[in-house]
């Protein structure tokens, strides 16, 4: 077990180095003089030179890379060109916004997706099964940004049930402690604000949850169908066990590995999908942070944010791999 985890950790080293190298090369890959492009047409010679110096572009690339790596190890993500302050100091509120959104979306996707898949498998070939699989099929093909716009149009504009965007009520904002607003409002015991925060979360979270929900429902159904054909399930039924327990206790446990794989994979992909959702719902998360940074040509911010999300992605995949080995001991021998 430990040997497996250590082996898995060792394979991470080249991946992490590669990640940092790609992200590092991003600015260097800008065609022409990066400083010139960042500053625009009206830039003076001196300001370009100053920025070159600030970005370290006047040194050979390998020196720059090792400096960059060294900086990363001490938690230095570089400075934002727009605000002229360290990125590491301003990134957390955005990151927290995305984490909160992604976790709530995943919770929705897993709860609905897994249950829908189970019921679909339980009542295979019923109208519920067909309707659900059709919905899942549509869900998989849904462009998330279109779904977001539709939700906004129906539930925010026409029905006025939820706000069109943002994380909280601008006129009565949450005072951040952890920047995870659900937790903050609970700590402060402010139910009124908690309700506001949840109301703001619903539309973007549902939009973000749709694709993973569809994929989780499909995989749960097929995985459950496979398990429910086995002998031990027939035995459980034969001894008169209630169907509910046969399905939710005996079958689900053995069907869980493929479901877990997909959940892990989707959680990582959610971080990528967040950039679209956040743009539509003016959600101040890391996706929105990247989007704004691109428009301001604030490349250090783009660079560092992409690196942070990729690190999360790698970390999630690592955790999923380790979880497998715990659930299914056969895996570590592969």
């Amino acid at each position, binding site marked *: 077990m430990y040997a497996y985890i250590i082996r898995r950790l060792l394979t991470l080293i*080249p*991946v992490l180095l*590669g*990640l940092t190298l*790609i*992200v590092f090369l*991003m*600015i260097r*890959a*800008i*065609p022409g003089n990066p400083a010139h492009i960042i500053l625009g047409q009206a830039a003076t010679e001196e300001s370009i030179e100053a920025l070159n110096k600030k970005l370290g572009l006047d040194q050979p690339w390998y020196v720059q890379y090792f400096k960059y790596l060294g900086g990363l190890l001490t938690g230095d993500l570089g400075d934002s060109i727009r605000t002229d302050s360290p990125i590491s100091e301003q990134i957390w509120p955005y990151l927290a916004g995305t984490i909160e959104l992604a976790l709530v979306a995943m919770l929705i996707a897993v709860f609905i997706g897994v249950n829908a898949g189970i019921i679909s498998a339980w009542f295979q070939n019923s109208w519920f099964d067909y309707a659900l699989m059709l919905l899942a*099929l*549509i869900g*998989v*093909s*849904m*462009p*998330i*940004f*279109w779904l977001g*716009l*539709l939700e906004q*149009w129906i539930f925010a*504009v026409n029905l006025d049930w939820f706000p069109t965007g943002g994380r909280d009520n601008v006129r009565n904002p949450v005072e951040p402690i952890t920047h995870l607003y659900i937790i903050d409002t609970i700590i402060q015991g402010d139910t009124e604000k908690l309700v506001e925060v949840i109301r703001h979360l619903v539309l973007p979270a549902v939009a973000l949850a749709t694709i993973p929900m569809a994929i989780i429902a499909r*995989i749960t159904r*097929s995985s459950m169908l496979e398990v429910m054909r086995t002998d031990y399930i027939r035995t459980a039924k034969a001894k008169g066990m209630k169907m509910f327990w046969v399905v939710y206790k005996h079958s689900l446990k053995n069907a869980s590995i*493929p479901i877990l794989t997909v959940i892990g994979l989707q959680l*990582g*992909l959610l*971080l*990528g*999908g967040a*950039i*679209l959702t956040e*743009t*539509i719902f003016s959600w101040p998360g890391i996706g929105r942070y*990247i*989007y704004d940074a*691109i*428009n301001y040509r604030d*490349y250090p911010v*783009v660079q560092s944010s*992409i690196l942070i*999300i*990729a690190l999360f*992605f*790698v970390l999630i*995949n690592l955790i999923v791999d380790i979880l497998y080995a715990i659930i299914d001991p056969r895996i570590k021998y592969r």
Partner: protein
Amino acid sequence: MADISTDKMEVNLEEEQVISPWKEAWRTFRKNKLALVGGGIVTFFILLAIIGPFVVPEGIDDQKLTEARLQPPSAEYWFGTDDFGRDIFSRVVHGARISLSVGFFSVMGSIIVGSFLGILAGYYRGIVDGVISRIFDIMLAFPSILLAIGIVAVLGPSLQNALIAIAIINIPTFGRLIRSKVLSVKEEEFILAAKSIGMKDTRILFHHILPNSMPPIIVQGTLAIATAIIEAAALGFLGLGARSPKPEWGRMLADSQAYFINAPWMMIFPGLAIILTVLGFNLLGDGLRDALDPKMKT
């Protein structure tokens, strides 16, 4: 001994009617209703992309600012008009050509580069394999849309750069697929036979290994077109792909944001076009997988 076994095979072949694997795949495919629906949708959009622009009433940028701004759908303007008074129906049809070309050409690019790298890695193993596989690992360590955004941010926003970015992010998928296929085909006896009669590496690769890798590439390629179309639209939506007045569907959705409260048709129809096309390619891809490569079924 070899003679005897081939004799036997010929007898068998004569007795049972010979069906080529492709014909058999077609038989399976034909029975799958959803796959046929998918094929129908895809054919429809391909025809639309080819013929549509010649048939629709308007070009991509026929502005009628005074007489036809933000008109709801009607007999004259089937999908309504946008904030410049342009016919949305015409623009959606023109957009089919953009989305389908981006989907098709980006995936072709990924397949060509991915196959090349995958073959190198799988056939020569060793350091070549190590380096190529690590590069794939690293690329797959990014959420794909994010990597695309990064690439476009560097190259500068345009439809062409969006296409390049989408092609790049899909390379590892095909590269890994081909690599594993090469690894398994390489062990087959007919490759050993080809080697023993002195066939050159390149000939073995192109005449034996590549044709054997076709079915999974076709399946994965079809499904990848679906994702590529969504990714292109996503980049267009974020302002990193096609620029106005190009009627790219994602771009049209982005432009609709300021108006859809009063003119929801600006948002509904381009979105419908995206989801239908993507659904078509997904259904077709699933059907092809069941027909061509039953082992890949999940």
